[in-house]
C-alpha cells in the first residue's frame, strides 16, 4: 500500500466512524465500508465479498435509545484492512469475518468513551447558548462529530502501521481446520441478527407472514426482489381487507417494544421454556 492509499483508508475509516453514530448515510454498514476500503486499496472484489458477508451478520444490529449495537464500523474497517494485508484473497474472507466480531465489541467500548466526552461538551454548549454564540455551538457539534470519526480512524491508522508481512505471519500461524471452522461459523452466525430482529417485531398477527416467507424461499427461482414484492403485496392486502372488514376490530398495532405482553405465541412458549 502506498502513502496515498493509506491516507484514503484513514479517510474512509473517519467517515465510517462518523456515520457509526449519526446513522444517516450508512457509511458504517459493512456493505459500504468494506467496499470503500477495497476500492481505495485496489482490492475492490475482496471488499465487496467481505462486505456482503459481514452485512448478512450485521443485519439486525441497530442503535436503539441509549443502547448501542455491536460496532459495525470498526468491525468492517479493521477486518477489511486485515483481509487486504493478508494477501490471502477470497480464501481469507472467512477468517476476516471471525476477526470482525471481537472488533465489534471493542468498538462499543470506544463509543462509550466518546459519548462520555460528549457529556462534558454539552455543558460547554450550555454556556455558549447563554451568550447566544451560535457559532461556537456549531463548532462544538463538529468537534463531537470529528471525535466519532477519530474513534475509527485512529485504530485504522494503527493497523496500517503494522507491516503486512507481520499480519501475514500471524494469519499464517492459523491452522486450516480453524480457518475452515470459522467460515462455517460465519455462515451460521447470521442467525443471531435475524433472531434479534424477530424478537423485536414478532406478534401474533405477523407469524403467518414469517411461515409463508420461509416456505416460499425454498423455491430458488424466486429472487429476493420477487420475494420482497410478494411480502409487500401480502401486507397491503391484509391491511386493506382488515379496514374493509365489517366489524373491524382494529387492534392497537403491534406491541413492538413491549416485552411483558407481546401477543407473540411462539415467543411466549420460548419464554416459558
Amino acid at each position, binding site marked *: 500500500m502506498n502513502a496515498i492509499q493509506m491516507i484514503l483508508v484513514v479517510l474512509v475509516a473517519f467517515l465510517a466512524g462518523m456515520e457509526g*453514530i*449519526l*446513522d*444517516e*448515510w*450508512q457509511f458504517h454498514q459493512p456493505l*459500504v465500508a468494506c467496499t470503500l476500503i477495497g476500492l481505495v486499496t485496489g482490492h475492490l472484489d475482496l471488499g*465487496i*465479498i467481505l*462486505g*456482503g458477508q459481514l*452485512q448478512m*451478520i450485521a*443485519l439486525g444490529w*441497530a442503535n436503539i435509545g441509549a443502547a448501542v449495537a*455491536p460496532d459495525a464500523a470498526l468491525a468492517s474497517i479493521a477486518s477489511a484492512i486485515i483481509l487486504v494485508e493478508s494477501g490471502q484473497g477470497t480464501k481469507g474472507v472467512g477468517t476476516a469475518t471471525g476477526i470482525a*466480531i471481537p472488533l465489534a465489541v471493542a468498538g462499543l467500548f470506544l463509543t462509550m468513551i466518546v*459519548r*462520555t466526552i460528549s457529556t462534558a*461538551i454539552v455543558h460547554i*454548549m450550555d454556556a*455558549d*447558548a*447563554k451568550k*447566544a454564540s*451560535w457559532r461556537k*455551538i456549531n463548532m462544538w*457539534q*463538529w468537534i463531537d*462529530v470529528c471525535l466519532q470519526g477519530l474513534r475509527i480512524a485512529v485504530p485504522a491508522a494503527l493497523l496500517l502501521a503494522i507491516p503486512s508481512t507481520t499480519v501475514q505471519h500471524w494469519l499464517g500461524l492459523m491452522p486450516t481446520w480453524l480457518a*475452515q*471452522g470459522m467460515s*462455517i*461459523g460465519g*455462515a*451460521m452466525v*447470521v*442467525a443471531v441478527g*435475524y433472531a*434479534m*430482529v*424477530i*424478537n423485536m*417485531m*414478532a406478534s401474533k398477527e*405477523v407469524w403467518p*407472514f414469517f411461515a409463508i*416467507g420461509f416456505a416460499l*424461499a425454498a423455491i430458488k427461482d424466486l429472487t429476493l*426482489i420477487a420475494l*420482497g414484492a410478494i*411480502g409487500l403485496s*401480502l*401486507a397491503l392486502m*391484509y391491511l386493506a381487507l382488515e379496514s374493509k372488514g365489517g366489524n373491524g376490530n*382494529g387492534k392497537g*398495532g*403491534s406491541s413492538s*417494544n413491549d416485552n411483558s405482553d407481546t401477543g407473540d405465541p411462539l*415467543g411466549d412458549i420460548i419464554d416459558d421454556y
Partner: protein
Amino acid sequence: MADKKIKLTKADRFNVMWHSQFLQGSWNYERMQNGGYVYSMIPALRKLYPNKKDLSAALQRHLVFFNTHPYLASPVIGVTLALEEDKANGVPVQDEAIQGVKVGMMGPLAGVGDPVFWYTVRPIVGALGASMAIQGNILGPILFFVIWNVIRLAFLWYTQEFGYRAGSAITKDVSGGLLQKVTRGASMMGMFVLGALIERWVIIKFTPVVSKTPIQKGGYINWDALPKGPRAIQQALIQWNKGNGLSLTKFKTTTLQDNLDSLIPGLAGLLLTFLCMWLLKKKVSPIWIIIGIFVIGVLFHVWHIL
C-alpha cells in the same frame, strides 16, 4: 417585532433538514440528542431571533433532553419550526408548549422508527445488497447505498415539511391510526422477508454420511468403456449432464443434510434462529451467542459433523 413578519423560506427549512443529519453527533449520556437538536435548529433560530437575548433563550430552550429515532426527529423539528416562527412573530407561544410538543412526540415516534427503519427497511435492503455482494457483484453495495439514501432523504424532507405545515395539530395524529398502520404493515413485510432470509442465508451443512448404496449397472458412468483422450472428458460430461444424468461413482451417498433437505429445506437454520431468539430472551448477550456459534462451528468441523 409584531409589525414585520419573519418567514422561514424553503431554503431555510432545507438548511435545517441538512443540519438535522448530524442530530446524533453529540449524543451524550446526560441529555442524549440535545446538542444535535439545537444544531439542527440554529439556521432557523438565527433568522427568527435577530435580538441576542431572544436567540440565547431559544438556544437554551432547545438544549433540553431529547431522544428519538434520528429520522423521526424530522416531523418534530418541523412542528417546532412552525411554533418558533409563530413565537418570533409575536404570537404568545409558551416555552412549555414547545417542550410539550417535543416530549409528546419523541416517544411514540421512536416506537415507529425502530421497527420500520432498523428492523424492516435496512434488513431488507441490506440483505438484497449483501446477497449480490457475496457473489462479488458491485451492484450490491451501490444499490444498498442509493436505495437507502433516497428513501431516507425523501423521508427527512417530507416529514419535516409535513410537521411544519401541520404545526402543533400533528400531535393528535401521532398516536392515531396511520402511523400504527405503517408500523404494522412494515412488521408484516419484515417478518415475511426474514422467513425467506433464514431459509436462504443461514447456511448449515451436516456432512455425516447416512447411507452408501450401490447403484445398478447403467446408472453410473462406465469409465472403462469411454474412448481414450480428451474425448473421454466430453463423453463423461455429456453422460453426467450436470448431475441430472448418470452418477459419477458406483455408489449413491446420502448425507444427513440430504435427508433434512427432503424433509424441510433450511430446517437447521430455522431451529438455530429459534435457539438464538430463546437465548436473547434469556438476556444472553448477542456477543456471547456469536462467539459461541463460532466455537461450535470450529469444534463441529473438527469432529466432521459440519
